[in-house]
């Protein structure tokens, strides 16, 4: 056929952009074929290695349960406690880097070339940002985290026998001072959910979007390393980077699905009296996976996007309900005060060295930073996928500043209401409840409790579904060497595998061990992200040069 005679033409993106000249063709390492009637198009060897590694780790965790638990939690301790300064330090760099890019002239560079137009509206884009990486967390921690920090700060500083602090309060605490404890509690919560996590996601997303849409490299994690590794990125260096990303994404999703099912079944038991136990949990995971599959089969626009928008609307409804029914004026005032407290405590909270509040710094901040960073390949890649056509400035404002603001609003309304229930009404049930029930206990003494609780449960489930769906999309793209048009059966494969791994680990034990393992991948990825910042700078500089050259 004439296929081979068709010339590839000179690289020419939409408008101006500086495509990287490489001899690598997207999909050149791919293997195509079919298993029975189902076709496949996978990257060799990333797909096989990823699949085997996943199977290997599941087997190891099940077969050597106690040993794996010891090893992985040791690893996790070393990572979050030994490298706390590193996590906190690099996260600060990411925030400053993103803020700098917003005001720098490089902010003008458009992802996809100077004439590209956005694929999604603000609303759709925005909803998907939350759906992938943070929605579930907001549901679980919206009430419990401000409450926990408030309580521990109120309790003040306690010294252990070893001369180190044994309390978990942030910074110096605020012993006996309700107002100050609340401010400190809100500041600490916002610190964990505001600029820092979103900056982590933004760095990965920006690197991938830039190198894919503007530089013409395949949409996989390794592409961001091209400025550093050059053509070697298509070899084993790249295979390792991509496999690590698949590993972190799949186990990150599977373990949180497993734990999520445990929590959701506790919630369902509390609210509707469903029996608690492995059977309910397996049914929940199967159900969530099944609905995620339907969403997978409906694709990005008909599946994830629609579900994300529905969920966003529901979440805002719940937010406004709590705002209106709760102590409205106090909450609005609280929002402004929390922002003030955040900026006041930000320098102290983000200080990486010489801290006395070891428990808080290692157990909360360092843990969260490892968590966000280990999720960043997944969330970053998904954000990149939906962000074509935005300028760097627009991208960072919408991925960093606005989501941070939404998180502040969410935390100050949910946390504020719960704390106000404790302070003003003496209602401590929510404070004393298990983590996954705190939101529901708070809603309990508000009007229409059965309805709002149901909305809460639906939100948790749908956030799980959108995470599972977008996760399968991301893993499939990575294991297909950056091709986004591989047969859908592959996405189905990953989606099912994720549910299966969650069930096997839930029944066989080992969710905790593997989650510790996944969080430990945050350490190598933190280094990876630092390098990405450098790669972004080089890429943007080159892009600007090109733009200027054509203007002249």
């Amino acid at each position, binding site marked *: 056929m*004439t296929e081979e005679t068709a010339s*590839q033409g000179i690289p020419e993106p939409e408008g101006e952009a500086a495509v990287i000249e490489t001899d690598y063709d997207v999909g050149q390492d791919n293997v195509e074929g079919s298993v029975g009637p189902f076709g496949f198009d996978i990257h060799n060897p990333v797909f096989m290695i990823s699949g085997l590694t996943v199977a290997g780790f599941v087997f190891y965790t099940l077969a050597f349960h106690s040993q794996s638990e010891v090893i992985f939690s040791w690893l996790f301790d070393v990572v979050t406690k030994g490298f706390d300064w590193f996590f906190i330090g690099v996260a600060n760099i990411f925030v400053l880097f993103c803020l700098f890019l917003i005001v720098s002239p490089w902010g003008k560079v458009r992802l996809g070339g100077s004439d590209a137009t956005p694929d999604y509206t603000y609303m759709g884009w925005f909803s998907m940002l939350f759906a992938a990486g943070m929605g579930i967390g907001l549901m679980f921690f919206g009430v419990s985290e401000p409450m926990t920090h408030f309580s521990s700060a109120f309790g003040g500083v306690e010294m252990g026998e070893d001369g180190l602090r044994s309390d978990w309060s942030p910074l110096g605490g605020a012993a006996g001072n309700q107002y100050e404890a609340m401010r400190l509690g809100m500041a600490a919560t916002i610190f964990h959910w505001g600029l820092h996590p979103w900056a982590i996601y933004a760095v990965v997303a920006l690197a991938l979007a830039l190198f894919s849409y503007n530089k013409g490299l395949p949409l996989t994690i390794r592409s961001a390393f091209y400025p550093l590794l050059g053509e070697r990125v298509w070899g084993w260096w790249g295979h390792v980077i991509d496999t690590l990303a698949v590993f972190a994404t799949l186990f990150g999703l599977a373990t949180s699905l497993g734990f999520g099912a445990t929590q959701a079944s506790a919630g369902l038991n509390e609210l509707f009296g469903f029996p608690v136990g492995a059977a309910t949990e397996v049914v929940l995971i199967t159900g969530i996976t099944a609905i995620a599959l339907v969403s997978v089969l409906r694709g990005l626009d008909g599946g994830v996007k629609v579900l994300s928008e529905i969920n966003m609307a529901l979440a805002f409804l719940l937010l406004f309900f709590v705002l209106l029914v709760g102590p409205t004026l106090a909450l609005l005032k609280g929002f402004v005060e929390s922002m003030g407290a955040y900026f006041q405590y930000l320098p102290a909270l983000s200080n990486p060295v010489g801290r006395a509040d070891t428990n808080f710094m290692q157990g909360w901040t360092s843990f969260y930073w490892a968590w966000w960073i280990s999720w960043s390949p997944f969330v970053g890649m998904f954000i990149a996928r*939906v962000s074509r056509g935005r300028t760097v400035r627009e991208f960072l404002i919408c991925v960093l500043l606005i989501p941070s603001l939404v998180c502040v609003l969410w935390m100050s309304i949910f946390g504020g209401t719960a704390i106000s229930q404790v302070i003003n009404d003496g209602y401590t049930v929510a404070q004393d409840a298990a983590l996954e029930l705190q939101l529901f206990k708070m809603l309990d003494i508000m009007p229409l409790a059965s309805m709002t609780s149901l909305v809460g449960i639906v939100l948790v489930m749908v956030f799980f579904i959108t995470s599972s769906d977008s996760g399968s999309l991301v893993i499939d793209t990575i294991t297909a060497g950056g091709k986004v048009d591989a047969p859908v059966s592959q996405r189905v494969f990953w989606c099912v595998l994720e549910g299966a791994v969650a069930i096997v680990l839930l029944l066989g034990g080992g969710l905790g061990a593997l989650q510790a393992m996944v969080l430990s991948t945050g350490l190598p990825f933190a280094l990876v992200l630092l390098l990405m910042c450098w790669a972004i700078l080089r890429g943007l500089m080159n892009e600007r040069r090109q733009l200027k050259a054509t203007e002249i």
Partner: protein
Amino acid sequence: MFTKIMVPVDLPHAARLERALQVAADLAGLYQAEVCYVAVTASTPGPKGRNPEEFAKSLESFASSQGATHGHRSSSRAMVSTDPSIDMDDTLLKACKETGADLVVMASHVPNVADTLFPSHGGKIARKAGVSVMVVREG
């Protein structure tokens, strides 16, 4: 009878579409029709172009080489979709409207059990398109 024939092509696998391409060329000769080659790409880099513009160029040169080989008028239209694996059918139906084609000639595989989960593109287009559709089995 027909003035513009739309032929959807899977550009990276165009070699597999031999029969459909031949039939389209024959019909174009018979009716003195123009053949419009349509292909769908994602906005991310792919094997046939590192961006949609490059992909459109690849398709254009494919179309003109087809036209030159078979001696019929040819044109091309590259469609961009955010999720081509899933939105293929809808994108092709949109292309059918936009190009104003009055006949679609497209390749399809022999139906198999996988079609219950992932229905074939040819079947869906034939069911939904407002114009005549000829589905050519490629074995």
